[in-house]
Each structure stands twice: as structure tokens, then as C-alpha cells.
């Protein structure tokens, strides 16, 4: 990463880049945004196709409990990754396991699981507040560009690459299984294994997004760019590429703009507000220009 910091510093000194990019934390945040954008945008199209929007939101919200557990078990308040990963994974896998074995409608089930996780998180946070300054948690809940360290970029790069390869290898089979599980099974596709793999992918992407977007809002970035692209595109290739581009632009601008405009808002909130703005514009375009189509 050192070469990148030096390059950004020299480019800023020479006037090619904005002076704020001379700071290492800013470079880290922008690199993280460039890595997360395409990943969340691409995965988001599958969240929309599989109608798992509520599920991905729930996994993000369950992160509060994971973070509280991690801190109570002795992890650093900046990176309680083990507590976060363990709780989110158990939450997501258990929810999916029960889903396949109950007659309760899926949205009701997610609602119940989410309520239990939030209640548990709320209870645990009281104990966390006795241990640390509770405001430290804002960084992991809503994202902060100041919190992204070089080691986080390495984790993001490694886990992101694995997720990207997995996603590309499984994409067609996952989509076919979402549209017609029966055709997929007859074609020899391991539908259940792919379902659990996707749950694992959503959990992992939630965890690696914690620093920039925040655990609470990551579900929104899995949803909003894909929902926007869905309004604008006709083909599947357009859907995935458009969603990835919208997510990346939101991540980049959401990281840069608060700094440039001197706004004291968390990066996660800025990213989601921008993505939400794109969604509203796409809706307006749909209503005004494609009316009657």
C-alpha cells in the first residue's frame, strides 16, 4: 500500500489530485470503496432475484449483537470481527435452516429472527456501555472512513476476491435455481448447497463492509443499486453491470463528498443516501419517460 500512499501524496502536491487525497486514510477509504462497490452491486442482483432483500437487511442488523458479543468477549471495539462473523453466520444459517423446515411464511420468520437478534443486541449493549465508550460503536454500525486501516484493505482484497470468484462460478446456477428450483435439480444442480453458499456470501460481504458502510447499512447497499438497475435494464448483463456501477459510484462519492463538503456524517449514511438518490431518480425516469410501456 505504501507505493499508493506515496503516489497519492506526490499527485496531490503536484496539484493533479485534491489535497485531501494526500492522507493515507483517504486513500484506504477510496480503495475500499472501489473494491466494495462492484462486489455489493453484483451480489445485490442475486439478492433481488432471490427476493432476499429482507434477509440481507436482517443479517446486517444482527451485526449489532455480533459486535456486542465480540466486545464483551474481549475483542477490540474497532474490529470485533470474530464475534461479528460467528453471530451473523449462526443467525443466517439458522434462519435458512428453519425456513426449509417450517410452514411459517419467510418474511414473518425473518421478522421474528430479526426482532430476537435486535433485542439480544440491545440487552448486551448495556453491558458493553459499562466496558467502553458506546460512541466508539458508531464507526462499525454506520461506517467511518477514518476507521479503514491498511490491514482492512488486505482482508477486503482477499475475502472480496474469493467471493468474486465464487459468485462468478455459481452465478448461472444460482439464478436458475432462484427461477425454477425444479429445472435446476433436474439439471443436477445442488440447489440446497447453493442456497447455503449464498447465505455465507451475504454474511461475509456484510462483515468486510463494516468499516466503510457500517453493519447496519450494508444490507441497503446490497439492495438499492440492484433495485435501481432493475428499473433501468432489460438484459441480465445490463442489470449486473449497471448495479455494480451504481454501487461503486455511490461508494466513491459517499466517501469523497462528506470530506469535500466538510459534512460531519458517517460514510455509510452518505453512501446509502446517494444510492437512494439514484433509486429515486430511476423511479422518476421510469414514471416520466417510460409511462405506458
Amino acid at each position: 500500500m505504501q507505493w499508493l500512499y506515496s503516489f497519492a501524496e506526490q499527485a496531490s502536491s503536484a496539484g493533479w489530485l485534491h489535497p485531501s487525497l494526500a492522507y493515507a486514510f483517504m486513500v484506504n477509504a477510496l480503495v475500499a470503496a472501489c473494491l466494495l462497490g462492484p462486489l455489493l452491486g453484483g451480489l445485490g442482483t442475486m439478492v433481488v432475484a432471490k427476493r432476499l432483500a429482507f434477509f440481507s437487511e436482517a443479517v446486517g442488523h444482527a451485526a449489532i449483537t455480533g459486535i456486542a458479543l465480540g466486545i464483551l468477549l474481549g475483542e477490540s471495539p474497532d474490529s470485533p470481527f470474530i464475534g461479528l462473523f460467528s453471530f451473523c453466520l449462526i443467525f443466517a444459517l439458522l434462519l435458512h435452516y428453519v425456513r426449509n423446515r417450517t410452514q411459517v411464511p419467510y418474511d414473518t420468520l425473518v421478522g421474528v429472527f430479526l426482532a430476537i437478534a435486535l433485542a439480544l443486541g440491545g440487552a448486551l449493549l448495556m453491558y458493553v456501555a459499562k466496558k467502553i465508550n458506546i460512541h466508539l460503536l458508531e464507526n462499525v454500525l454506520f461506517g467511518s472512513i477514518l476507521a479503514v486501516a491498511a490491514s482492512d484493505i488486505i482482508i477486503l482484497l482477499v475475502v472480496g476476491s474469493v467471493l468474486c470468484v465464487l459468485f462468478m462460478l455459481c452465478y448461472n446456477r444460482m439464478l436458475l435455481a432462484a427461477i425454477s428450483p425444479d429445472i435446476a435439480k433436474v439439471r443436477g444442480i445442488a440447489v440446497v448447497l447453493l442456497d447455503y453458499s449464498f447465505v455465507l456470501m451475504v454474511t461475509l460481504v456484510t462483515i468486510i463492509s463494516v468499516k466503510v458502510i457500517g453493519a447496519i447499512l450494508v444490507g441497503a447497499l446490497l439492495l438499492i443499486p440492484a433495485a435501481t438497475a432493475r428499473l433501468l435494464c432489460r438484459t441480465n448483463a445490463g442489470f449486473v453491470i449497471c448495479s455494480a456501477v451504481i454501487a461503486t459510484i455511490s461508494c466513491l462519492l459517499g466517501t469523497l463528498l462528506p470530506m469535500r463538503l466538510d459534512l460531519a456524517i458517517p460514510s455509510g449514511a452518505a453512501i446509502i443516501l446517494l444510492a437512494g438518490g439514484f433509486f429515486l431518480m430511476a423511479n422518476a425516469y421510469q414514471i416520466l419517460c417510460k409511462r405506458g410501456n
Partner: protein
Amino acid sequence: MSGAIHLQHVGVDYGQGWVLEAINHSFEPGQCHIIMGPNGGGKTSLFRSVLGLTPFVGDISVQWPSGRVGRLGYVPQKAIFEQSLPLTVLDFVLLNLTKVPLFLAPLWPGFKQQRAQALASLTRVGMAQRAHLRMGQLSGGEQQRVLFAQALLHHPDVLILDEPTTGMDEAGVQYLENLMHELVAQGKTILAVHHDIAAVRRILARTPGKVHIVNHHLVDSGPVEDVLTSAKIETLFQHFSARRA
């Protein structure tokens, strides 16, 4: 000649009593086999068992020609195509043809050939002109034709159809019946669930095949003129619980 399907003591129980019980039967190769019966009689359970989509007891085996393992094609009654999901007809067919992610497929060297194969399959069901439309924009009957096209992609030896003409217009039904005739003439085996007695008589008047009535057990089986007689029809299509009473 394509595969023959053998069923030995096949039964299906979803935990609330037997839906199908002690079915012993063989579907000969190279024929069109139409499965009929009352609602709740176990038609769908029977062919879902053949496809391995539902647990069953007993044994089902497909005897493929000349020792090679053949291919099964399946046309479900419907699939979930949300109206606004960006997935064209061509995308859906390609989804069944390639492992290269759809969003990268145009960059892959073999894409042109796969696209041509997908369009050829759509042409067979009269849907090539609508390949650019989103799946959700098609009518139920048109979606059914596209589902048929995906089943034809890998030249299946045995084709299993679940109420294939549901929601189809006259032109669609014509395409489908011609295609069934053509496939059987090529030696393929077709197993289809159907509910329209007139359509079954029409299909089997020109295509070699048999009718099999499933109502908890295999009630009757044979050429259409022997099974679907006016004297038999009323009793054949009574629910098995009413028949017991």
C-alpha cells in the same frame, strides 16, 4: 430408440397417507405416454418421483439405449418470472446452456455458438422473434413455450412435461403438438401430464403412444381408444376416496 421407464412398487407418502401406492408399470421407449387422472390422484407425484424431485419408496429405473446414460428434459408447469426482473428470453435459455456468468458470456469465445444454439431451440417453439423480450413480458403460454425450448437444448432422450398446454393459445398448442409428434418420430420418449381429454385424443390420433390413468393406483393403461371411452371416463376420473365409498 430412447429410454424406457420402469416402476416397481412405487409409492409416495407426504406424511398424510399414501398419495400413490404400489405402482408397477413400464413406459415403453419411443412413445408418447400421457398421464391423466383426477385432481389429487397422484399424477404430479408420479412424474416428480421419476424426476427424483420427491422422495418415494420402491424403484424407478430408466433403461437407456445402447448402454449409454441418456438425458432427461423437463418442462415444469410454470416458473417464477417476475415481470420487472431484467432477464430476456435469450438470457433464460442461455442460463441453461452455459456456466460462464451471463453478464460475462458475450466476452467468451464460444458465446456466438451458444447463442445460435439457444435461438435454434427457440425457433423450434416459435419464440425466436421474441428472444429480446423480458421473460416477465411474455404471456403464460409463451413462457411455457420458452420452458419447452430449454428442455430441448441438450437433445433429451426422455422428455417429461407437466400440463404443457396450460395457458397456451391455439398457435402455441399447435406448435407443441407438432413438436411432440416430431420428437416421438425421432425415437424420443415423452411422459406428459395432461387434463384435456379432447387434446389427448387429438395428440394420440397421430402420435404413437398410450394413456395411463393414475388415481392413487394405476387405474387403467392402454391405447387411447380403449381407455378414454365414454363408458369409462366418469369412473376413471372420480377421486379415489369417492370410489372407495
